[in-house]
């Protein structure tokens, strides 16, 4: 099969074969081995990771093509929203605490991230354009690319979050760096949920708009701009305890207020992540082959 001058031993041959698969020089699809097909789909994420990141960047650049501010528009959106809420908070709700600025800014930025990840996720397999690249398709690439797109938007908003946080809250210890594990945990919950929503969203075309509406509902039930502390303990507190968005917001926002989020939030998110990945793997393996016909 290989044209080489010298003889190769088994291991070298195996290595060559693996590289050829990564470079898309060997392509095998066998209906009798569905597991192998799923694995080859997933493995492209590792083999082409760099290219996927570039494609994610391209997506963002394309989205704001021919606009003057370009991707900075997402920053403008955040500033406008926060400014509006500050006016509302100061004059209507009489909130004078400056950390509230940080609270709302982080709330809005991270809520937008959660919202757009799930809303885009639900529709990510419905775009037929993804079906016509002329190459072996990878359905595992699509959610990763979607997440990269949203992380880039989040990164564009980072100057506001850090600016506001450093201005109003004193960072005199390492507590604030806890936003890193918090964000990793949130991402690890969002990806599997987006995969499940995406697969079913391709089949059931009512799902993407339904998800968007439900998320709107979730926005009001989650402490994005209102204070979680204002909910009394007891039965009403279930609104927060049973709300996954609350736990997500806590682990990424608390650090910017230089506070430590209670361990329970981390544990709940870890549980959601493990459960989510289990379901996502089952759904993906089961329906992956059919997505192309639904798209």
């Amino acid at each position, binding site marked *: *099969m*290989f*044209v080489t001058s010298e003889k190769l031993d088994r291991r070298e041959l195996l290595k*060559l074969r693996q*590289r*050829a698969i*990564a*470079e*898309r*020089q*060997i*392509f*095998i*699809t*066998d*209906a*009798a081995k569905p597991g192998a*097909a799923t694995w080859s789909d997933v493995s492209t994420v590792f083999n*082409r990771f760099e*290219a996927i990141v*570039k*494609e994610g960047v*391209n997506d963002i650049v*394309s989205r704001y*093509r021919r606009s003057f501010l370009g991707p900075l528009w997402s920053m403008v959106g955040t500033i406008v929203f926060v400014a509006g809420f500050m006016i509302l908070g100061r004059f209507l709700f009489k909130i004078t605490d400056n950390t509230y600025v940080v609270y709302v800014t982080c709330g809005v930025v991270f809520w937008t991230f959660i919202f757009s990840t799930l809303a885009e996720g639900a529709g990510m397999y419905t775009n037929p354009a993804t*079906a*016509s*690249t*002329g*190459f*072996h*398709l990878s359905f595992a690439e699509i959610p990763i690319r979607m997440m990269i797109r949203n992380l880039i938007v989040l990164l564009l908003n980072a100057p506001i979050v850090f600016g506001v946080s450093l201005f109003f809250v004193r960072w005199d210890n390492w507590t604030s760096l806890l936003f890193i594990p918090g964000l990793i945990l949130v991402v690890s919950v969002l990806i599997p949920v987006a995969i499940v929503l995406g697969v079913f969203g391709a*089949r*059931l*075309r*009512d*799902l993407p708009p*339904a998800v968007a509406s439900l998320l709107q509902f979730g926005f009001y039930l989650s402490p994005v701009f209102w204070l979680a502390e204002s909910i009394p303990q007891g039965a009403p507190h279930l609104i927060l305890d049973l709300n996954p968005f609350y736990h997500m917001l806590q682990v990424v926002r608390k650090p910017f207020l230089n506070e430590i989020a209670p361990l329970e939030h981390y544990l709940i998110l870890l549980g959601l992540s493990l459960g989510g990945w289990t379901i996502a793997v089952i759904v993906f393996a089961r329906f992956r*082959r*059919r997505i*192309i*016909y*639904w798209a």
Partner: protein
Amino acid sequence: MELVPRLSATNVKVTFPLHIAESRSFKIKIGQLLGAHRGTGRKYKSALNNISFTLRSGDRLGIVGANGAGKSTLIKTLLGTYEPEAGRIIRIGKVAGLISARTGMDPERSGYQNIYRRGMQAGLSRTEIDAFVPKILEFADLGDDIYRAVRTYSSGMGARLGFAIATSMSAQIYIMDEWIGAGDARFVEKAQERIEAMFNEEHILVLATHVDALIKRWCNKVLVLHHGEQIALTGVTEGLDIKNRILDNEPVESILSDYNANNVVPLQGKVIGGQT
């Protein structure tokens, strides 16, 4: 690393679900759960059935058949877009797929940027793509328009660029759908010259087209499809004859029995019949 190219399909079967349009909405789904839409069940359309062939270095296969015979489905299955329901496809060697002119292009980006985009999709590095760019620019012949968004291109311009990109990245297996036969006469002529120059004895070509002249010029084998079934895998003259007789509404059985009776031995000793 150069591999010896090979492309084989073994008993490939592809079915399209037909139940999609009607039961996509919640309303009907819920209705079904409540028993209102009982008995609709799942319907599938067989798009390809029992497709088997092996292509090696130098084989140039033309896929022919009437509209809806499964040509494009087979092309997409060979490229890996559709996964077969049953059967196996093994593809060894670098592949270039030309499904449509603007395959994989981002209309908002310039032609120039799309060259890199396509290259990355094919798994090439930036420096590897750099090497191809002059060749692509020369063939596409777009002048300064290459820096304009692809969205603004005429279909001819898009076709030239897409074709130039796809044929510049040296591949060993070229899989093309029929769009190549479109475009103005000058482009078609230029494209044909390029494909001929690009080919060498080791390459594999798979081409789906309605244009008999293209098959005669480029192919040395013909696969005749009819309603997703592989009717014959044979030589060019015989294959085109079988296809044209099917287009003339002659029953498939009579064409095949004709061939078998006359003991024609076009390819490897046999005409492969339909349902075997």
